[in-house]
């Protein structure tokens, strides 16, 4: 803007012919700049089409009958049917998978955020013995390969008789979700100036009252983001959830792989089940759109 303003001030003092020439030059310049960025939308558009095609294909399949999927190749359902979704919502072995997943995911999210809140506050406000080592140790658990933990988890929870319960999966997922929540919340809390704490104490607030009445509302968006990511990472995880469950708490993800390995599988139902697992992410995605990079980078962007 400053360039144009500058030009305007100067041009107003010039003779008309020169003014005309400068106008033309300016117009040319503007046009050139426009040319440069005229096709900027092409790259994101092509990329988004690339992203959407496989998802579209899954949705497409979920509205077809098995005969149509295997018999004819069409870009959209010829005879759209809700039969596949009906199967999932009426067959307990399918819909129980969703219920199981949701139960342990919610349990995990609540546990993770609740224990992470005070810890994140401690990390963001105080220095204490071994704080940096502890913070690093938390990170290593977030980065730990689930494959390493699959077998020991199975033995640990067997010893406590917790195999095939929701709480077992919820606790096991704390391995990576608690560190994630601590890191994300610490990032948000560090953005709140310390003067707020001090003022509150001077005003006679006790710590618990300050924390619940003043501090938590201040970092509400951070709690939302942390909860969302705990939910998401627990929701997408398969290996540990599958190892720790057999029937009663089996998540939808494991039920889906079971059908994949079986012969004569029902593609339509599989596609419908897949579409339904995408929905929780798709619903909240709009509200967290600005925090997604932050969440994956542990609140450090």
């Amino acid at each position, binding site marked *: 803007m*400053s*360039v144009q303003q500058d030009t305007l001030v100067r041009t107003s003092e010039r003779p008309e012919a020169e003014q005309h020439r400068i106008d033309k030059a300016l117009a040319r310049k503007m046009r050139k700049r426009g040319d440069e960025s005229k096709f900027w*939308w092409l*790259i*994101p558009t092509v*990329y*988004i089409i*690339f*992203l959407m*095609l*496989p*998802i579209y*294909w*899954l949705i497409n399949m979920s509205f077809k009958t098995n005969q149509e*999927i*295997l018999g004819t190749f069409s870009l959209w359902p010829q005879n759209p049917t809700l039969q596949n979704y009906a199967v999932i919502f009426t067959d307990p072995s399918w819909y129980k998978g969703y219920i199981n997943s949701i139960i342990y995911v919610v349990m995990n999210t609540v546990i993770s955020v609740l*224990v992470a809140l*005070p*810890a994140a506050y401690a990390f*963001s406000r*105080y*220095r*204490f*013995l071994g*704080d*940096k080592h*502890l913070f*690093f140790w938390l990170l*290593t*658990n977030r980065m730990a*390969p689930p*494959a390493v*933990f*699959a*077998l*020991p*988890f199975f033995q*640990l929870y067997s010893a406590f008789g917790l195999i095939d319960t929701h709480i077992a999966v919820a606790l*096991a997922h*704390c391995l990576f979700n*608690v560190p994630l929540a601590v890191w994300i919340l610490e990032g948000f809390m560090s953005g709140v100036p310390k003067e707020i704490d001090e003022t509150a104490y001077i005003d006679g607030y006790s710590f618990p009252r300050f924390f619940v009445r003043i501090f938590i509302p201040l970092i509400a968006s951070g709690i939302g983001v942390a909860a969302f990511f705990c939910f998401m990472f627990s*929701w*997408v995880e*398969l290996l540990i959830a599958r190892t720790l469950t057999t029937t009663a708490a089996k998540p939808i*993800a494991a039920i*889906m*792989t079971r059908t994949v390995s079986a012969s004569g599988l029902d*593609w339509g139902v*599989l596609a419908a089940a*897949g579409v339904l*697992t*995408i929905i929780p*992410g*798709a619903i909240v995605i709009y509200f967290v*759109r600005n925090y*997604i*990079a932050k969440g*994956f980078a*542990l609140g450090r*962007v």
Partner: protein
Amino acid sequence: MEKTWNNKAWFMVLPVLLLVAFSAVIPLMTVVNYSVQDTFGNNQFFWAGAEWFDEVLHSERFHASLGRNLIFSAIILLIEIPLGIVIALNMPRKGWGVPVCLVLMALPLLIPWNVVGTIWQVFGRVDIGLLGHTLANLGINYNYVQNPMHAWFTVIIMDVWHWTSLVVLLCYAGLVSIPDAFYQAAKIDGASRWAVFRYIQLPKMNRVLLIAVLLRFMDSFMIYTEPFVVTGGGPGNSTTFLSIDLVKVAVGQFDLGPAAAMSIIYFLIILLLSWVFYTVMTNYDAER
């Protein structure tokens, strides 16, 4: 922020400590236990020392899966990072395009990993998948179940589909933090598009790019679910990455010793990478 020294803060960290110790330290100790012992069943264990480590470190199978995993990570980094930068540079900065781009691009990141596998398994099938069908119609004898090259192609394009958006979103976050004044100054100086990228945008993206590289490397190094669903590690062993191999040894063959030794070596590599990640983060925080 100036922090006060207060060891009572430990009480606030205690719940986290107990919880994570329960789900991390105890299992890890089991792994360490197994890695130095041998068993003939009946819960009788014998001291084996470094035997299993020796065996794993010299086994061709471990070398092969480690090598495959490193090649896989290298390929996806080489594709996803530049692609992510290019897309982020061309994303709209304001208007209705921003939320549309963000929402649509982030969608693959939030799909359960086994569903990502299922999506591509279906998408790549010659009889019912769009990709497989199209390739077959182009005269390519595409078959990811039997041809190792095609299996690799499928797994890589799946990972690019799944995770490039993360690089895009990270880079975008770095780009929007550049004040408009920088671009105006560049315009006045008549800087070329390349100069703007090289001297304004790239330095501002430095840190997020480093995070993106580290995250993508670590996650691709631990990849299990997606290739497991699509190829099951096959054909043969051609897409058996470290995690898949480890689960095969531990849960499939129940070879506790070698599996535990492998886990520890695996974990040490991740530990090293985490330390790099941590140093990058804290150094930046200190500068700020």
